[in-house]
């Protein structure tokens, strides 16, 4: 792996490698000395074009535990907000010999652009781009789910897949990079993914995703999911005619106390409730659900550091000449010129 841009192009092998490595990183987090020398002398730049203290701190802790030097570049309030282009910013970081750039950007595809442009040599880690993907969030969710799944089965986490697991993702899938990254990663790891949300907040084209789509949350819960992931409802969606009112949204698609009790009634004792945070308590999730023993919210935050350590380690260690040691099992993408007429391509 040279970059971590999306989970869609992450092979099962690389995904498992990331999760297994994260298990070892998690063990380091339980030691007295929570530091490893693996990335000593390497520079990781956190390039944040969007405020996200939680994600930035998590990446910063991960890089520091691996002994990397960390430079935080908050693009808000810097020359970027004065119109400096992504290209110029990238070249500045290149001149500073950044080994990895962790980028959070409001534009979908900005990390991919950075990685493919040739403006910079560094490894690029997508820390959330627009409404596209948030691969490390999905990895920490998968890590959390895997530990849960392995614990139920009485197996060690390392090496375990999510085969047999049923994960329900609920809410604004249309605008959610967390949902996209999870759909690809969880299905790659063998889980069955269900989506539930208002039809206005499910993308046109969702029919081609490897998921079952429900417009009714209770119908989806009747499928007896092993995990329910509630997505954050962004404030800017609330007044854009995607649904009539937050009250109606909460009633139809919120994980409220009634649905929490329903899990008990249905005997779904091992079903966990997830949320990527920050939560809108009382809107997409009730306080009782968020604070219940089923909630993995805090475990998700904790696991974020381990997963990000794994990502930084796997991207930055290893011979840079030894390009992609697992490129063989990348999913094959359609040749975009394949639509050329008969005779050019089969």
């Amino acid at each position, binding site marked *: 792996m040279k970059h971590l841009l999306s989970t*869609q192009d992450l092979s099962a092998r690389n995904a498992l490698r990331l999760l297994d490595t994260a298990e070892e990183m998690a063990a380091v987090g339980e030691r007295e000395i929570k530091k490893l020398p693996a990335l000593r002398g390497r520079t990781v730049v956190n390039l944040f074009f969007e405020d996200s203290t939680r994600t930035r701190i998590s990446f910063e802790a991960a890089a520091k535990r691996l002994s990397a030097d960390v430079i935080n570049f908050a693009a808000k309030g810097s020359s970027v907000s004065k119109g400096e*282009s*992504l*290209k110029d910013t990238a070249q500045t970081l290149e001149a500073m010999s950044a080994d990895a750039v962790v980028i959070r*950007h*409001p*534009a*979908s*595809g*900005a990390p*991919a*652009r950075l990685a*493919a*442009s040739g403006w910079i040599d560094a490894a690029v880690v997508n820390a959330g*781009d*627009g*409404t*596209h*993907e948030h691969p490390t969030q999905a990895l920490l969710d998968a890590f959390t789910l895997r530990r849960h799944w392995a614990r139920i089965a009485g197996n060690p986490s390392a090496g375990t897949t999510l085969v047999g697991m049923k994960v329900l993702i609920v809410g604004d899938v249309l*605008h959610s*990079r967390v949902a*996209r990254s999870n759909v690809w990663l969880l299905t790659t790891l063998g889980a069955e993914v269900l989506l539930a949300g208002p039809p206005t907040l499910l*993308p*046109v*084209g*969702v029919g*081609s*995703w490897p998921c079952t789509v429900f417009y009714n949350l209770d119908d989806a819960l009747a499928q007896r999911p092993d995990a329910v992931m509630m997505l954050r409802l962004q404030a800017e969606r609330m007044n854009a005619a995607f649904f009539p009112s937050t009250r109606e949204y909460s009633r139809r698609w919120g994980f409220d106390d009634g649905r929490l009790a329903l899990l008990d009634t249905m005997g779904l004792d091992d079903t966990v409730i997830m949320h990527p945070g920050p939560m809108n308590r009382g809107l997409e999730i009730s306080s009782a659900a968020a604070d219940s023993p089923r909630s993995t919210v805090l475990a998700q935050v904790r696991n974020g550091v381990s997963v990000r350590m794994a990502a930084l380690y796997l991207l930055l260690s290893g011979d840079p000449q030894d390009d992609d040691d697992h490129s063989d099992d990348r999913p094959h*993408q*359609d040749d*975009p*010129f*394949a*639509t*050329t*007429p*008969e*005779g050019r391509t089969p």
Partner: protein
Amino acid sequence: MSPDTTTDRAVDPAQYLIRGVSPLGGEATDLLVRGGVIAASGPDAASGAAADAVTIEADGLVALPGMVDLHTHLREPGREDAETVETGSRAAALGGFTAIHAMANSSPVADTAGVVEQVYRLGLASGWVEVRPVGAVTVGLAGERLAELGAMAESRASVRVFSDDGICVHDPVLMRRALEYVKAFDGVIAQHAQEPRLTEGAQMNEGEVSAVLGLTGWPAVAEESIIARDVLLAQHVGSRLHVCHVSTAGSVEIIRWAKARGIDVTAEVTPHHLLLTDELVRSYDPVYKVNPPLRTSDDVHALRAALADGTIDVVGTDHAPHPSEHKECEWAQAAMGMTGLETALSVVQHTMVETGLLDWAGFARVTSVTPARIGRLDHQGRPLAVGEPANLILVDPAARWTVDPTTMATKGRNSPFRGLELPGRVRATFFEGHPTVLDGHLSTPRRGQVPATAVDGEDAAWNI
């Protein structure tokens, strides 16, 4: 009234004997170009040629009427860093065009007689191709008030095509009035069909790929609903309508239906919509960002079929050069548009001729004859016959070349065909009997005389 440029300009004194060329891909013959017209053909050509006639060996080459583009962005005035009339018309000549229509979204907008005359004059001064300005439909492309359509029609530029291209004339009342009004001077409204509310913030075709990429979708219905409305309006007021850059299979169906009902509608497709699909957007490379967006493979095939069966009448390049900084950035911030003048012939040959959907006569129909008729250019898109104006090109259909935007004449480097191997090269372009391109390279412009009246008009234009 269309300007008779052949009398505005000095005639090239040289004679050109084109030997062994295949007009429209037919039987090989000789053509003699003299005095701005095709003076002789067949055995008469060689025997009628003067001793000092320039001989062009054209074995294996196809002669076609010079291509006519109804849809070119020349950027001048206002964005001379992106393109000028001079660079754009050089690119056009190299691409096999003898006439191009300069879209109105310059700065200032071509919404007055002064601006269209300025562009027209710049075209005359360049002399590589015939440059016909398109007039804006509404003042400043703002979609609020009609521009002075009559003044532009009666100016020296004799504007016949009006368009707010880049922006849809979405107000139905304004669109109706525009369609009605231009009937007075045989004009046509070229509509950029895009329902604005349905495409707020739109970045790419809405479908499976946009769902994955998390880019705001530009749904096909936003184009189709406007076309449906406009053909009904055109029918109601008995006007002619031209639909720019049709991009969806659904639009094709609506236009086919409208034509079957006898509605006077013509439609255009770009070369890029005949070849490229939204799968390319997966790279997030803004060179593939264009409006209307690249669609799906089903749309591409529907567009090809429609161009073949006449539902879509013409190919228009929508040549849209941008300075590199407008493409070297994030997708969402990048400008929309692609260059097209120097690749149009090859892409159409590749997608339509080599697939058997069109023969060379069909190619001439969609790239020259019909666009000239829509733009009311009397001396373009003419038959390759004795006595006709010598606006013609010589094409090597067997050539193969790899697209390299850095070597193009346009200032724009934003070609989506970069790196692609394509068939067909323009070997020569004759513009009013003068070779602007020879041996595949720019030769000399057709030195015309800029009419004194046009020079006078300059001050007048800027005093408005």
